[in-house]
């Protein structure tokens, strides 16, 4: 294989994983915009997505499509419960405490998953076979096509929802200013609940589409969360287009790093990018600096 072709191959596979990072990053942004919380459990949603899909599809032998929607519903419900239970019931509303509650939730989900699903890595069959397609001489797995397709559809649908529907506009109003939104009579609590539910659903999808490629296990949540977060920072924290661009870029950087340097240190790439961006341009590629009111 020529070097150019190899590079192309790395970029393609980077865009594939990058798409899932984008979905995770969007999840982070939704919750952050609504509440100011870094939802540490975001990565666990992704892990649960993979695990539930394996349970419904591989273990209970349900067909692909029902399994897919059941998984989305289940993880969305877990997202909803996280907000409705721990976050809402918390005596202290300090951000520090709330962030830490999501850390606690993340650890609990991980601990429970270890008991329920065991410690071994598990995988899913690809959605439609494993015969690679050839594009300009590079091999693309059908699963990658699925990943691109699903990610693009979700991003478009979410964009439509946020820009065109009343509920979506209300969510954006809450993100812009919680106080003004409350004064306008927008049910802020419900919008926050919605952001957690959506983040759960997004995590579920990310987990389901990536598991056939990367496999999953009970403990992948933290690292996936870190990557989604880094992607969000790279693109500009809180910005939707930023999340997508950041996710794709991070995927490509990581894939190039693994391919050209060493795959053992692949996970270090996200961290280095995170620190570099915070150092050089904390508002990210698409972000605008925000001012806090006094």
């Amino acid at each position: 294989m020529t070097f150019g072709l190899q590079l192309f191959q790395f970029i393609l596979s980077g865009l594939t994983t990058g798409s899932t990072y984008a979905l995770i990053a969007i999840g982070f942004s939704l919750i952050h915009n609504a509440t100011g919380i870094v939802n540490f459990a975001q990565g666990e949603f992704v892990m649960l997505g993979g695990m539930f899909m394996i349970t419904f599809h591989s273990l209970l032998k349900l067909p692909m499509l029902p399994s897919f929607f059941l998984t989305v519903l289940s993880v969305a419900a877990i997202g909803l419960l996280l907000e409705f239970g721990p976050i809402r019931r918390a005596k202290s509303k300090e951000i520090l405490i709330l962030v830490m509650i999501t850390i606690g939730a993340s650890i609990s989900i991980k601990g429970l998953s270890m008991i329920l699903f065991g410690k071994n890595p598990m995988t899913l069959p690809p959605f439609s076979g494993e015969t690679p397609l050839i594009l300009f001489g590079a091999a693309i797995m059908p699963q990658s096509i699925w990943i691109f397709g699903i990610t693009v559809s979700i991003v478009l649908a979410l964009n439509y929802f946020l820009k065109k529907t009343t509920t979506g506009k209300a969510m954006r109003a809450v993100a812009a200013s919680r106080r003004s939104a409350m004064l306008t009579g927008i049910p802020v609590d419900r919008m926050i609940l919605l952001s957690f539910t959506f983040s759960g659903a997004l995590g579920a999808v990310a987990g389901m589409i990536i598991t056939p490629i990367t496999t999953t296990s009970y403990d992948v949540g933290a690292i996936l969360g870190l990557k989604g977060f880094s992607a969000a920072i790279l693109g500009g924290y809180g910005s939707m287009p930023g999340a997508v661009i950041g996710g794709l870029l991070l995927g490509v950087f990581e894939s190039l790093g693994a391919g050209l340097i060493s795959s053992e240190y692949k996970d270090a790439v996200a961290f280095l990018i995170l620190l570099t961006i915070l150092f050089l341009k904390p508002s990210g590629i698409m972000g605008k600096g925000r001012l806090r009111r006094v």
Partner: protein
Amino acid sequence: MGKKNKIYLLAYALIIFLVPAIWKNNYHLMVLNIAALNIVVVIGLNLLMGFAGQISLGHAAFFGLGAYLSAIFTATFGFPLWPTIILAMVITGMVAYAIGIPTLKLEGHYLVMATLGFNIIIYILMIQLDGVTGGPSGFPGIPRLQVGGFVFDSDRKIYYLLWTISVGTLLLSLNLIHSRVGRAMAALSHNEIAARCAGIDTENYKVKVFVISAVLASLAGSCYAHYITFISPGTFSFFYSIQVVTMVLIGGIGSLWGSVFGAILLTILPEILHAVKEYNVLIYGIILMVVLIFFPQGLFPVVAGIFRKRKDEARSGMELVPGKGP
């Protein structure tokens, strides 16, 4: 520091140093020795959480950095013991500085992810750089702690050394929070804008507190390595970071006495419960959530409240529970 704290500290030190005389079981002393080191880490972490309003999920990595740097420099290169421990603290401090500068300049919780990432990287390095670290099977044969030819070669002997370090850390930290700098830190963790407008260089303080906190973890890590004489990556995984965060929360954010309580409780409790290892992670997760949801001030004020009379309630809140005190 206030008279009350001085009396508490004296009583505490007295009890601590009487324990080995009464307690004959060496295994129990070992558990207490680990508790002494955990206290050092937890106090450091609490300075960060309670006085800079920031969370670190990478303290296992700083603890591990201290342990491995100590092991490598003394066992592999034959450096002298105490200078090495200090060198490890300096290096760890510089690493923390490098992480803190970009993340703490910003308002918000960027540090939590950066330290998580750092923990993951350090863990990868401990396993991958097996030529230097011994890889997954660990690093054996680390020289024991000694002072002027006196080797601390039993749990009982080392008890006094580790607890001196532990009590010393508490003393200095109590001093710090009851000073101009401590007040500034308490202010910035509570109301950053007001603190900045009151003339406090909040970024600088946050970075400094983070560095101190990492340096304390490094010190504890070095002591751990020279005490157990064998280290392996498993000890320094992300889970230890979670454990120390939980200890801080149980004791109460911003309460140093609470940290002592939290660290001792959560070091001893698993030994008593002999919890099945499988449930460990889940149990910590649930403890974290329950404490955070229902007792955001930690369990220590609840427990202490049972013993304390209510008479001096109205007086200064900074005396016993600074930071987020009621």
